[in-house]
């Protein structure tokens, strides 16, 4: 009996509890749904090889689909986790920055004023670099406002939220710029049998995790988030740390933007990254991170991002249209944050304490 209790306690303290439980729940819904429809109950998990005319033999299956489509959210979630941790605020500009990065990248590749091309006007590397550089620039702008001018993160990033998408449109000369070129399309299609976005995400996650674990950066970010003033005294320059997290967030937004642009081989400024900032923030919250800053859990955010994608894919499979899906997302968000809310936690603690006291008396 006592042993079981400690296991439960351990489980309760496990930081990944929330995202993992959510993910398991989503999978369970899929299994039940498939079984109820007379399909193979585990068709959710099946991965098959399929021959395609466009890309040769590729992996196919719902899991692959979720991993593939969740890539942008997962990449954004890395940057968002760091921003939330260091500054106790969110960067709401990432979706717009994605759009701007894709626009700049596509315009560099197609040439200004061209609306559709199959030939590249500039080398591919230059286009990618331009996209990523614009992302970094936006991140630096946000970082400057938050770290140096001490402006509330949401307010500071509101500026680029409003402007970045429109600047992208201006760069594109108000057109949807199509770059129908396989070289550019590569980042949104397949590398061998595996979708390229999955590989890019894996690299981003691995590099970030390595840097955070091998250097003291992770600890710095957390300590800045826990107490900006105290860490300044301890010899850390909190401004530089906060600035850097925003820069990284912009960088990742740039990468995500290029992937998204490559997926549709175009820069559709009005639609790329629309509502992505919300998915990224949701991923961080779902990953068990406090939006109040401080300690962070990168793995949780990544799992959170894929959980959101799994929810979306499942909803589609259940026949919910993409326009109606937000209703369910909203309910899920509220449940998750309500569980984590201090007054609710305090209420449950009181109840379990009362129960324990009652048990003692008996």
């Amino acid at each position, binding site marked *: 009996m006592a042993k079981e209790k400690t296991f439960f306690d351990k489980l309760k303290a496990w930081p990944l509890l929330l995202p993992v439980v959510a993910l398991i729940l989503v999978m369970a819904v899929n299994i039940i749904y498939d079984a109820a429809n007379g399909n193979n109950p585990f068709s959710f998990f099946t991965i098959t090889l399929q021959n395609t005319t466009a890309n040769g033999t590729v992996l196919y299956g719902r899991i692959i689909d979720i991993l593939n489509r969740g890539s942008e959210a997962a990449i954004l979630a890395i940057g968002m986790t760091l921003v939330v941790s260091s500054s106790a605020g*969110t960067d709401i500009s990432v979706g717009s920055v994605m759009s701007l990065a894709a626009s700049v990248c596509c315009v560099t590749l197609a040439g200004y004023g061209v609306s559709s091309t199959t030939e590249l006007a500039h080398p591919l590397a230059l286009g990618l670099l331009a996209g990523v550089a614009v992302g970094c620039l936006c991140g630096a702008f946000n970082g400057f*406002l938050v770290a140096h*001018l*001490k*402006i*509330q993160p*949401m*307010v*500071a990033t*509101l*500026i*680029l*939220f*409003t*402007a970045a*998408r*429109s*600047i992208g*449109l*201006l760069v594109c*000369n*108000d057109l949807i710029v199509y770059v129908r070129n396989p070289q550019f399309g590569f980042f949104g299609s397949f590398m061998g049998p595996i979708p390229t976005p999955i590989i890019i995400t894996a690299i981003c996650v691995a590099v970030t995790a390595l840097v955070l674990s091998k250097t003291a950066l992770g600890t710095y970010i957390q300590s800045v988030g826990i107490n900006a003033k105290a860490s300044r005294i301890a010899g850390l320059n909190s401004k530089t740390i906060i600035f850097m997290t925003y820069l990284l967030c912009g960088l990742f937004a740039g990468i995500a933007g290029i992937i998204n642009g490559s997926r549709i081989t175009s820069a559709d400024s009005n639609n790329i990254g629309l509502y992505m900032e*919300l998915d990224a*923030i949701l991923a961080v*919250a779902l990953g068990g991170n406090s*939006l109040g800053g401080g300690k962070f859990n990168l793995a949780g955010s990544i799992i959170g991002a894929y959980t959101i994608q799994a929810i979306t894919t499942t909803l589609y499979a259940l026949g919910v*249209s993409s*326009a*109606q*899906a*937000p*209703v*369910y*997302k*909203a*309910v899920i*968000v*509220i449940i998750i*944050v*309500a569980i984590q*809310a*201090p*007054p*609710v936690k305090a209420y449950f603690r009181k109840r379990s304490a009362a129960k324990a006291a009652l048990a003692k008396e008996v």
Partner: protein
Amino acid sequence: MKKLKINGNTLLLLITIALFVVMYAGGMAAYGAKGFSRLQTFLDILKTNAGLICMASGLTVVMLTAGIDISVGALVAMDCMILACGMEAGIGAVPMMIIVIVIGLIFGAVQGFLVGYLEIQPFIVTMAGMFFARGMTAVISTDQKSITEQINPLFYKLANIKIKLPFGGYVNRKGVYMAPNISVGVVIALLVLVLIFLMLRYTKFGRSLYAIGGSEQSAAMMGLNVKFTKMKAYILSSLLTSIGAICFCLNTMAASVQQALGYEMDAISSAVIGGTLLTGGVGNVIGTFFGVLINGTISAIVKTNGKLASSWPSILTAALLFLFIVIQSIFAAIREKQKG
């Protein structure tokens, strides 16, 4: 110390008004010949933005408590869809408007409860609210709904009423005197503006909003019911948004899932440009009104010009936001210096 604070805030308001005047005068100088100097041009900005004035006033109230409400745009879409579908089903215009207002109250009460009593971050709560309202619009109908004279004659009539002003008219090319006119929506919006202005200035509720935004702890120590006041602020915001939605619908006479997309950001930027601090405690609906007018003037100038890319209004709005946010942060820094 207190004197400086007031000066700083009045200064912000003055900057906003001055900016509007300069901008409008610039428009008149450049496009006076193209009708920009007509009173009607100004009234048209009001007509188009009547809904936005209501929403931004509500948002100002929430922002005074250091909160935010990003659900307003989606709520407008949902309200319009309910209005259109309800009237299509044969329900009268007046009952439908009451239903929409009640829905606004309930929506605001839920959001307010989550923010006030469960202490969840306003941004997250209202983001969920935005998801919910936008998705619910699609659940009600994914079609583009239209409100025609056949569907509801009363609503149609309301939308087409022109309230003529006795001055500032002009003679048109047919030689007919055209009196400047405003719509019912403008009257509602101006009424809302005056009421909220008076409420903030002269009621206990209004003053406690400022107190909570200034410092939640000291407000609680003063014996204010912080939780309930916050909840009321969100209820007021959603209520005003629903009233705004009616004005909006009277202007567009249509409903669709994509309607009023990004309107929350127009409302927030209007409030910020109008001198409302996102950190709470400082702000005024008069400033917000001028914030809406500045945004409206920018797009009117761009539209009158006709050669500028349509993305300019939002880029210019963002540039103004940038300017105002930085000015605010300087005032905040100076104030902190004075304290320390």
